[in-house]
């Protein structure tokens, strides 16, 4: 006896229900009830108060032909497993370069001796920011990481961020440009971006684990790129759409082609916004690379994970400090580059 018996009997479907009945996996609650031995089934006092919502489970009790909720999740899993192999045939070769890029970057960053790497990074900071103070700070922070023997981990994290952020910009900027040019494209892309941005970071990893082997670097590479590409796309689109309409009109009045308009007007004027997007993308890559240590991404995240797993408080805190230092370095350097772009390009004019 179940709450919704009346429904199926009323519809004359009783026979159909029983014919297709399948036992299906048993829930723990059922098992316990059976184990208790006693006939748990009480006489149903059908009061309106006890009427459950007609959920899958409740309907299943009345009509076994209807699937239960746990059949649904199992079906989801099964269908995912079914498409996995054909999907892999397509995705594996496409994403293979990502694995190579990550492996090589990891190798280059960690194998290069510190006394070459350090000046190179400082040079990069100088080129981006033209600030002695910032260069001094970065030098100090990296020296500290070297001093406490976190340098290799930090470089691993850094190399992953370099590769992933670069790819985010490489794909994100063109996508953003396409969005800014077509309202349809924008309408179609925004829900995807919203989903990527709101999906809990751990959830990214679940389907990827099924698709790729945990030993492959592209697994975490894809997770990081998917998570971090959103701001650069959004801000490229926004930046180009915000370009002064008067200037666009002037470009058209002087006969610029679409391509000339894009290269000579829209991208230069949107550059401050695009750079802000790049800054956000780098910061989000850093956030994700820590979580990606769950799926074997090397770097400081591994130490944090160790701190949590083994309750090694000091290890976790120290790695956390390293991550904070990296975050400050990346943020300050990209912001300084952004400020230089701002000074050159977008200054209030009217």
């Amino acid at each position: 006896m179940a709450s919704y018996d009346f429904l199926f009997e009323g519809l004359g479907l009783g026979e159909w229900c029983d014919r297709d009945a399948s036992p299906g996996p048993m829930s723990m609650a059922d098992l316990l009830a059976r184990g208790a031995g006693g006939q748990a089934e009480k006489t149903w006092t059908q009061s309106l108060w006890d009427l459950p919502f007609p959920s899958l489970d409740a309907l299943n009790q009345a009509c076994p032909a209807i699937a239960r909720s746990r059949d649904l999740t199992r079906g989801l899993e099964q269908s995912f497993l079914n498409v996995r192999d054909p999907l892999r045939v397509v995705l594996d070769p496409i994403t293979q370069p990502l694995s190579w890029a990550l492996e090589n970057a990891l190798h280059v960053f960690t194998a290069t001796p510190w006394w070459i790497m350090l000046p190179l990074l400082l040079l990069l900071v100088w080129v981006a920011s033209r600030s002695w103070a910032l260069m001094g700070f970065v030098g100090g922070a990296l020296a500290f990481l070297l001093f406490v023997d976190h340098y290799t981990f930090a470089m691993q994290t850094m190399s992953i961020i370099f590769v992933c952020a670069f790819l985010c910009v490489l794909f994100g900027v063109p996508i953003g440009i396409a969005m800014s040019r077509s309202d349809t494209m924008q309408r179609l892309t925004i829900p995807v971006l919203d989903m990527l941005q709101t999906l809990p970071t751990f959830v990214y990893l679940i389907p990827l684990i099924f698709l790729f082997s945990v030993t492959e670097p592209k697994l975490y590479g894809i997770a990081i790129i998917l998570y971090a590409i959103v701001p650069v796309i959004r801000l490229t689109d926004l930046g180009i759409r915000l370009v002064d309409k008067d200037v666009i009109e002037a470009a058209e009045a002087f006969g610029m082609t679409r391509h000339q308009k894009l290269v000579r007007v829209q991208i230069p004027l949107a550059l401050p916004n695009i750079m802000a997007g790049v800054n956000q993308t780098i910061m989000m890559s850093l956030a994700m690379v820590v979580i990606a240590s769950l799926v074997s991404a090397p770097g400081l995240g591994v130490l944090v994970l160790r701190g949590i797993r083994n309750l090694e408080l000091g290890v976790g805190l120290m790695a956390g400090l390293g991550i904070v230092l990296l975050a400050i370095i990346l943020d300050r350097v990209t912001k300084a580059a952004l400020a230089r772009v701002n000074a050159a390009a977008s200054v209030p004019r009217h």
Partner: protein
Amino acid sequence: MDRNASISIRHLYKIFGPQPQKALEHVRAGMGKTELMARHRHVLGLRDINVEMKAGEITVIMGLSGSGKSTLIRHVNRLIEPTAGEIMIDGENILAFGETRLRDLRRRHMSMVFQHFALLPHKTVLDNAGMARAVRGDDRSTYERDARAWLERVGLGGQEDQYPHQLSGGMQQRVGIARALTSNAPIMLMDEAFSALDPLIRTDMQDLLLELQQELQKTIVFISHDLDEALKLADHLVILKDGIVVQQGEPQEILLNPNDPYIVDFISDINRARVLRVRSVMDAATDPPAQTAGKVDADATLESVIALSAGDTTLSYEVHRAGAQVGYLNMQKLVRALVPTQASQNGMRNSTRRDPD
């Protein structure tokens, strides 16, 4: 198209809205702007515009905001597509042009100056001035000299390497004009080019434009909401109201014979003595008065003649143009011309009020 291009606009209509062609039928059947908006949710931008813009002249299109003047000028280079009508430039209908020809037209035969300058903020003054030529694909070395020369000519010599934001509004607009001149196009479209500038600088820029025009003889289409500016610059004045041409012609003619209460209202506040010229109020050379007090030029303003006569209304002057005597000017007639007679006689000034827009 040669150096001097004439523009003629014929039966031009522009209706904004989702179904302009359908709305056009209503407009052609005589429906007005307000009714079209209320009944069919379409905005009547321009209605049956017919304007001939002669080569080498400044045509000023004047009207208050919402009169459709900015819409009209954007039809000349097709930044806005018309709903119906023809736009002929040197006898060719530019509405039939494909994308490539239209781009070529914009690149080589037209330049535009904007109200808010619309300079590229990330380029130097020199690069901005050379923009039109760079867009055309000209080599930098070929246009840089021209750009420098025009910047020098508009008074920006030595500022070539600055960025637009480092300049004042007036100087930015000089860059805008230098950009238009460097393009070397025969047609210059000026969309409220001086409206964003303060009055003294505006006067300077108007003088600069007139001076340049004397030597360049370009076909200029100038948009303005300022009657004084319009009268000062115009060879041909077109007055727009609610997307309709209310009157067009020589500015002096419009001033002396306004044909619409709207224009009477408009011109009632201006200093007629400064705008009207001797040639507009003189008697043609038939009937010489008893004696004349001297000679005046046909293009002199009435103000200068009043100053010359020291206010004596009994005098008459010989009117000369290019050395030849062309007529006589009676001071009493001059004084009468200073009063907007038509308005005072039939009381139009009092019976009509300015439109809310």
